[in-house]
C-alpha cells in the first residue's frame, strides 16, 4: 500500500509539474504575442507616418507646379493682352474730343493698374521669385500688395538679422502665411493682420495674428479644418511646429517655430520643387 500511495504521489507530483510547465508556456506565449503586437503596431504607425509625409510632400509639389503654371499664364498671356488693350486705348484716345479722351485716359490708368496688380500676383505665386528675394522681402511685398487693395491693413515687423532657411522651407513658410492671410480675409472679417518675423540664431518664429471674429478649433468640421491641419502638417514637413490659437471673438493667432539647424524632411536642392523635373 505505501508503494501504491508513493506511486500515486509521484504521479500526482509529475502531473502537477507538467501542468505548471504547460501553463507557464502558454502564459509566456501570451506575453511574447503582446510584445510582437506592440512592435508591429509601432512599425505600422511609422510606415503610416512616412506615407503621410510622402503624400504631403507630393501635394506640396503639385500645388507649387500649379501655382507656377498660373503665374506664368498671368505673366505671359493675361498681362500681355492687357498691355495690348492699353496700347489700343491710347491709339483711340488721340482721335477723340477732350471729354472722351479723359474717359479713355481713365480706362488706360485702370488697365495699367490691373497689369501692375497682376504682375505682383504673378510674383507672389511664383516659386522662383519667392526664393530669389527671400522670405522677409517677399512677405513685405505681399503685405504692401494687400495694403494697396484697402480691404485689410497688414503690418509686417521683422526682428533680428534675416538669414536664409533654404528655398524650400522659405517657400512653405510663405505659403502658410498666404493661407493664414486668405483665411483672415475670407472667414474672419478682420480689419487688421499682423505679421511678426523673428530671426534668432537657433530659432525662427513667425507669428500671424488677426483681429477677426475668431473660431473654436474643436468645432471645426473636416472640410473647414483641413486648411489649418494643412498648415500644421506643412510646418512639420519642414521640421517646425505650428500652434493655432483662437476663440470666438478673439481673432486668431498662428505661431510657427522652426529650428534652422534642424534637418528638414524636404530636400533643399534645385530651383524647382518638382522632384521629377
Amino acid at each position: 500500500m505505501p508503494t501504491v500511495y508513493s506511486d500515486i504521489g509521484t504521479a500526482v507530483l509529475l502531473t502537477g509539474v507538467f501542468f505548471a510547465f504547460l501553463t507557464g508556456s502558454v502564459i509566456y506565449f501570451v506575453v511574447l504575442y503582446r510584445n510582437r503586437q506592440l512592435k508591429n503596431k509601432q512599425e505600422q504607425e511609422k510606415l503610416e507616418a512616412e506615407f503621410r509625409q510622402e503624400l504631403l510632400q507630393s501635394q506640396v509639389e503639385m500645388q507649387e507646379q500649379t501655382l507656377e503654371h498660373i503665374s506664368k499664364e498671368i505673366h505671359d498671356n493675361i498681362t500681355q493682352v492687357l498691355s495690348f488693350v492699353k496700347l489700343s486705348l491710347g491709339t483711340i484716345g488721340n482721335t477723340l474730343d477732350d471729354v472722351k479722351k479723359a474717359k479713355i485716359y481713365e480706362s488706360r490708368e485702370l488697365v495699367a493698374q490691373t497689369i501692375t496688380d497682376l504682375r505682383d500676383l504673378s510674383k507672389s505665386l511664383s516659386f522662383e521669385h519667392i526664393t530669389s528675394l527671400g522670405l522677409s522681402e517677399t512677405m513685405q511685398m505681399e503685405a504692401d500688395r494687400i495694403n494697396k487693395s484697402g480691404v485689410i491693413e497688414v503690418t509686417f515687423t521683422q526682428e533680428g538679422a534675416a538669414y536664409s532657411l533654404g528655398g524650400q522651407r522659405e517657400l512653405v513658410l510663405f505659403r502658410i502665411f498666404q493661407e493664414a492671410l486668405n483665411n483672415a480675409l475670407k472667414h474672419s472679417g478682420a480689419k487688421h493682420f499682423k505679421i511678426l518675423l523673428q530671426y534668432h540664431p537657433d530659432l525662427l518664429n513667425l507669428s500671424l495674428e488677426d483681429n477677426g471674429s475668431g473660431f473654436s478649433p474643436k468645432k471645426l468640421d473636416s472640410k473647414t479644418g483641413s486648411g489649418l491641419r494643412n498648415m500644421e502638417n506643412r510646418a512639420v514637413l519642414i521640421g517646425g511646429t505650428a500652434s493655432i490659437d483662437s476663440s470666438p471673438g478673439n481673432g486668431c493667432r498662428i505661431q510657427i517655430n522652426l529650428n534652422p539647424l534642424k534637418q528638414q524632411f524636404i530636400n533643399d536642392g534645385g530651383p524647382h520643387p518638382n522632384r521629377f523635373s
Partner: protein
Amino acid sequence: MALFAVVNAFYLQPYYNKIFPSYVMIPTVVLLASFSLLLFKQMLLYPVQVNIIKQSVFWYNTAILFFSTTMFLNFCLINYYSEHNINNPIVFYFWSFIEIVLNLLLGISILTDKKSTYANGV
C-alpha cells in the same frame, strides 16, 4: 493516417478484440501537438491587432495542445492497464479532469468566436 487507422482496426489492434487503438491515437496526439505548436508559431509571426485573450483560435489551440500533451502518456499505457488489470481510479480521475479542462477551453473558444474580433481575415 486515416488509412492506417483502418488497417489498425482490422489487423493490428482489431476492434473485435476490444483493444484500444493506441497505435493510431499516439501518433494522432503527437500530430495534434505538433500542429498546435506550428499554429502558435504562425500566430507569433503574423500577429493581428486584436487582444489574444479575445481570439477564439488561441483558446482552441491551447485546448488541443493541452489535450494532446496530457493524454499522450495515457494512450501509451492504456492497453498495459487493461492487460494487467490495473484498475487504479486515479487514472480515471485524471482523465475526467483532462476532459473538463478540454471542454472548458473549447467552450471559451466558442464564446470568444465573434466576427468583431476577426482582423485581417484571420
